[in-house]
């Protein structure tokens, strides 16, 4: 078209100047810290190095979080104080209760199944002949965006009536088996499970890569000792492999759980939240940005935050215990 790069240059210069100014401030700060007098030097160093990060965290994370919590106690236009009404709303309607049920289904199935599949695959292909190729095959979905994979799966689930040629793989298989084609994404709650499959397809690759690396890191002495003792493959897995990679398994489950709690793209692309497939993060977006109800949107965001917090605390704790035990 008539895109002209020179038009953009005037916009790029201010950005470059801002980046340059930022760099200058940091370099200046470091120089100043270096020539500071000996007394109290340590304290200044801590402040100088942590300060910028703290300020950015304050602006980008803490202030918005406080504001969100504040807004969650107000009505749609953020004008009148309504107390806990927005939170009550989450638990008082069939539609929102279905949304919570769906979120629960997601959180139960995605982390467990992706980790199980990833672990099984990692163990099976470990030291196999075409390990590299086999691993890249299952890792590849990770490289596709969530929206992209949802569209791929929408085609797999696509439905055409009996008289027409099927364009979806799933329904074509049903037709070959002599069954009727079926609308997969219409009937709750099973349709949520069909969406969950998409997420598992993506996350299993992530689980596999991390767990495979952990398996490779098991000291070979342990494995050899176990072999000398004559373990079966079954015992090897449950008594040696799994206990050795336990911390990695926990990290993988936690990471996928947090990603799943925030699931948005798959639902939005797959069904648009229709047919009772709504989830927490998607309803939050709907309330805040489509229905212009900042109160309910914020309340949902705070609720989501409360659900993630215990997981984060648990993760930080195990991490700390591990570093202490070393």
């Amino acid at each position, binding site marked *: 078209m008539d895109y002209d790069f020179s038009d953009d240059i005037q916009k790029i210069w201010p950005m470059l100047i801002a980046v340059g100014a930022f*760099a200058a401030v940091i370099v200046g700060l470091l120089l100043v810290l270096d020539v500071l007098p000996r007394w109290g030097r340590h304290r200044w160093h801590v402040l100088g190095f942590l300060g910028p990060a703290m300020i950015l965290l304050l602006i980008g994370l803490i202030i918005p979080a406080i504001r969100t919590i504040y807004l969650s106690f107000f009505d*749609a236009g953020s004008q009148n104080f309504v107390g806990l009404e927005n939170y009550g709303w989450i638990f008082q309607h069939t539609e929102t209760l279905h949304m919570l049920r769906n979120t629960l289904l997601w959180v139960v199935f995605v982390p467990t199944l992706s980790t199980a599949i990833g672990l099984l695959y990692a163990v099976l292909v470990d030291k196999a002949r075409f390990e590299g190729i086999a691993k890249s095959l299952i890792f590849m979905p990770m490289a596709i965006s969530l929206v992209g994979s949802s569209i791929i799966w929408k085609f797999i689930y696509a439905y055409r009536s009996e008289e027409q040629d099927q364009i979806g793989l799933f329904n074509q298989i049903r037709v070959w088996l002599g069954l009727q084609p079926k609308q997969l994404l*219409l009937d709750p709650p099973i349709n949520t499970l069909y969406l969950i499959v998409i997420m598992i397809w993506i996350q299993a690759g992530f689980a596999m890569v991390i767990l495979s690396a952990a398996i490779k890191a098991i000291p070979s002495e342990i494995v050899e000792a176990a072999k000398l003792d004559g373990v079966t493959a079954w015992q090897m897995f449950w008594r040696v492999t799994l206990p050795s990679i336990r911390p990695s398994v926990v990290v993988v489950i936690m990471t996928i759980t947090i990603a799943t709690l925030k699931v948005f793209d798959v639902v939005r692309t797959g069904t648009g939240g229709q047919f009772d497939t709504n989830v927490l993060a998607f309803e939050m977006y709907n309330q805040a940005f489509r229905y212009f109800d900042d109160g309910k949107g914020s309340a949902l965001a705070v609720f989501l935050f409360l659900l993630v917090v215990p997981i984060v605390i648990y993760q930080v704790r195990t991490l700390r215990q591990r570093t202490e035990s070393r």
Partner: protein
Amino acid sequence: MAVLSRRRRAFTLAGVAALAFAVTGCGSSDNSGSSDTSKPECAPYAQYKVDKKKTVSIYATIRDAEADKLESSWKQFSDCTNIKIDYEGTGEFEAQIKVRVDGGNAPDIAVFPQPGLLATFVKSGKLKEAPAPVKANVEKNWSKDWAAYTTIDGKLYGAPLGANVKSYVWYSPQLFKEKNYQIPQSWDEMIALSNKMVADGIKPWCVGIESGEATGWPATDWVEDIMLRDQGPEVYDQWVNHQIPFNDPKVVSAVDRAGSILKNPKYVNAGFGDVKSIATTSFQEAGLPVKDKKCGMHRQANFFSNQWPKGTKVAEDGDVFAFYFPSIDPAKGKPVLVGGEFPAAFSDRDEVVKVQTYLSSPEWANSRAKLGDWFSANKGLDLSALANPIDKLSAQILQDPKTVIRFDGSDQMPGAVGSGSFWKGMTDWINGKSTTDTLNFIESSWPK
């Protein structure tokens, strides 16, 4: 850690960018002198001319072929006035406009398809009142009804852009001729025709309401059109303004009447499957079986004429045409459901005002109409410029003072209902939810 690595990335980016500049030796090359604004064809645009090259951004829902025509409609204006129009069409307008405005990245002009949404931005104080020349154009060229859609608390915020007539049923004139069907003049005749088609082995109706995030809107159009016929314009207004509850027995009656077609497995869904397939059939492809004579009738606005494959003749003696969605009691007059778009400005810079003024002028309306498949309720629109017979018919209906015109109801309701629970509720209704449950759900979502 994350902060540090991001910072490092920023340095790398800056480095790469600096290198790119050094290599290409880019300064700002001034090429604005190319357009010659003193050409004779530029004479009509003299009043809009600005001295320096300026850019005005427009953000709207109009995409693809229609967007191309829109952009060529103001090309000459652009060339002659030094005002470059940066147009962006999106399928996510309803959600993204708030993100952009709240983020301080508002477009200069946003073209709202929903007066209700426009009002939300007026109330938050973000939109600028329409400038004097736009007001003058609106007073001169539009009826009071149309001006009222963008008038909030006595202040006008924009002129209508395009218009569409939604009360149409598309059909195949060839099929009607072959089978000797008559165009129905009343609701009962239309049902009788549907039964006749069933007896002849043709599924009479094809419907599709899938439209991404906006899934459900064609079903709300059905309900609005029938509400207008089943209950009359006065009740329709009460319903839109929430003076009667959404689950009022009058609304139940209208929705059930819609259900007598939409949820009748003998009538739907020609070419796509059972009743539930309505929910997953996209509105763009829903009417296409009409052309192949696989589907008897398809209720959709005049803008569906853009969806027919290339080479389809849209005319009374062509491949496809549309008849007026009949009223239940013809003695009570002809109610017509309409829709439209309304440009409103977030900025009052001189060049923005000039673009706004031009878009509200009959000159622009005629420039756009010449390109086809479009019309407006602008009284200055030259009917002979309309090539498409359906556009001509629609413009005539709109300019006729006797028709009872009502604007798309869901577009006037608050966003939480009009582009939220009403769409969602109707989708669930198609998927098997009862009328009462659906309307109770929508009523409960109406903002207090």
